[in-house]
């Protein structure tokens, strides 16, 4: 057990800055590198990849990244927690193991593999046993979409991450473990926190929430005084330094860009927040109204007095199901009368879609440069008559592919047979896209058994 533990965020989502993990490992002392890859619908994308090739289904970027970092991680005794395993953590671990052997590190790396979150193969059995898996937002029963379900995973907590670390894992690769569990796990392991120390678990959960989106806690996407945040090109990703008593400080490596401030950390705390007094995870219920923040020097914020309550007897389940099709087309109209031309083009297009008898669930028009982000609130503030250009952005959604396919052929003709001064169509005809929708539900905890295996490379 140690007095403090340093956990560094390396990725806030799949697609985040590839340099960040390397800089976290080399920029100063850290104990753990935490990398979150899974957003709500990522699992279904990975499930699709796995159904085409049983050796896939994980965040592929993770493997070359580990190949680059492994020698440094071993040299600096930095451990890794990541949910890069997606729907195939074992295959991900095997791929990292192969990379380690290629580097001549055979016998030196232990990989912990966390599974047990996968429920797809057990869905009918679970439904038969009375787990209705009702949609948390709409209260509809899963039977509505049962035949279209593509993936189903329970959110596991920090428990199996702790177990993998306790059994000697250098790298913990998980499936659908919560973003916060990847940070809380190392804290519980390193600081000896018991699984019923609710205030401590809530503190670790809040630490995880602060750093799970990477640089969003250290100056990225930060609205307050945004123009004065220094050197974002060189932004330092956040690091949590946690003490055994549950207090922790958020900071970043010296010499990096960005900013760690009370205002910036507060922005991240309220990000994707529901009821702040009840932030429910598999590990505990954290109370965000108990948090105390204080600036403790440049780029250092102290977080203290966090309170938590016992975990519930449920786990959240993330299901994905096939919904239908959508497509979005865009054209750019130039001054003079850019907005009026774009509006006229929208009317022409809608009339042609109607004349063709095409049926859509939704047709949505936005005028980028006028109202795409703030809707009528922006139009109400007045639209400048001499806007240099406006982008017409029109999208359609339907359960069937045919009308969406036909829509994609109706954009380009407007270039020659619609209102004038139109450009910006170099991308060609838009492609119909399959919609995989998200279905959040709850399941009794006792139905889910997390599993930890070790792969010794």
């Amino acid at each position: 057990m140690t007095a403090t533990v340093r956990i560094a965020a390396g990725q806030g989502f799949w697609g985040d800055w590839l340099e960040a993990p390397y800089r976290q490992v080399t920029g100063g002392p850290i104990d753990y590198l935490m990398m979150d890859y899974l957003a709500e619908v990522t699992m279904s994308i990975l499930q699709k990849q796995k159904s085409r090739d049983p050796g896939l289904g994980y965040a592929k970027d993770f493997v070359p990244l580990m190949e680059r970092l492994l020698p440094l991680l071993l040299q600096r005794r930095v451990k890794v927690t990541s949910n890069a395993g997606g729907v195939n953590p074992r295959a991900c671990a095997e791929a990292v193991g192969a990379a380690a052997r290629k580097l001549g590190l055979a016998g030196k790396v232990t990989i912990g593999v966390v599974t047990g979150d996968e429920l797809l193969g057990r869905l009918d059995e679970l439904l038969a046993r009375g787990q209705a898996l009702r949609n948390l937002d709409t209260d509809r029963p899963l039977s509505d979409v049962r035949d279209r379900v593509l993936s189903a995973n329970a959110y596991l907590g920090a428990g199996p991450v702790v177990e993998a670390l306790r059994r000697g894992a250098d790298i913990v690769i998980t499936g659908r473990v919560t973003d916060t569990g990847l940070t809380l796990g190392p804290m519980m392991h390193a600081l000896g926190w018991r699984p019923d120390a609710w205030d401590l678990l809530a503190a670790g959960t809040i630490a995880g929430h602060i750093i799970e989106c990477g640089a969003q806690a250290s100056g990225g996407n930060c609205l307050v005084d945004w123009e004065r945040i220094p050197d974002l090109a060189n932004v330092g990703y956040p690091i949590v330094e946690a003490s055994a008593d549950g207090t922790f400080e958020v900071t970043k490596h010296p010499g990096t860009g960005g900013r760690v401030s009370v205002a910036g950390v507060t922005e991240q705390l309220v990000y994707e927040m529901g009821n702040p007094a009840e932030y429910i995870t598999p590990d505990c219920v954290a109370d965000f109204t108990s948090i105390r923040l204080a600036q403790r020097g440049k780029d250092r914020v102290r977080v203290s007095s966090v309170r938590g309550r016992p975990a519930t007897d449920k786990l959240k389940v993330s299901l994905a199901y096939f919904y239908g099709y959508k497509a979005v087309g865009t054209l750019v109209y130039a001054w003079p009368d850019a907005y009026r031309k774009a509006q006229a083009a929208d009317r022409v297009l809608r009339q042609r879609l109607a004349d063709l008898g095409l049926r859509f669930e939704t047709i949505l028009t936005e005028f980028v440069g006028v109202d795409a982000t703030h809707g009528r609130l922006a139009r109400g503030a007045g639209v400048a008559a001499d806007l240099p250009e406006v982008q017409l952005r029109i999208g359609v959604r339907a359960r069937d592919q045919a009308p969406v396919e036909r829509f994609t052929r109706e954009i380009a003709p407007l270039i020659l047979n619609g209102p004038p001064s139109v450009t910006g169509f170099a991308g060609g005809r838009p492609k119909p896209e399959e919609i995989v929708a998200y279905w959040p539900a709850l399941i009794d905890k006792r139905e889910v058994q997390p599993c930890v295996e070790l792969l010794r490379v």
Partner: protein
Amino acid sequence: MQLRALAHARSGDKGDTANIGLIARTPKHYPLLVREVTAARVARHFRGMITGPVERYELPNLHALNFLLHGALDGGGTVSLKTDAQGKVFSTALLRMEVLVPR
């Protein structure tokens, strides 16, 4: 006065619900936010842009309010046709609101 002078904000999504965390620029502005930026006023502000109700939660410790705007994202996530399908900039739309500031 426009809310942007008194507060900053960040927003995100949960399914078809957008959340907006509204944070006072200084602690002394927090009571004013509590008084002026009610759930009912936010619902009026976004009328026609959201299909569900607005809920408000208070975080006096962070001088912040959290709003949940239900039915804000045309189905949310992958289903939505909106540019801002994940409600990332709903926060800035709230900052357009005009509030009464005592002199």
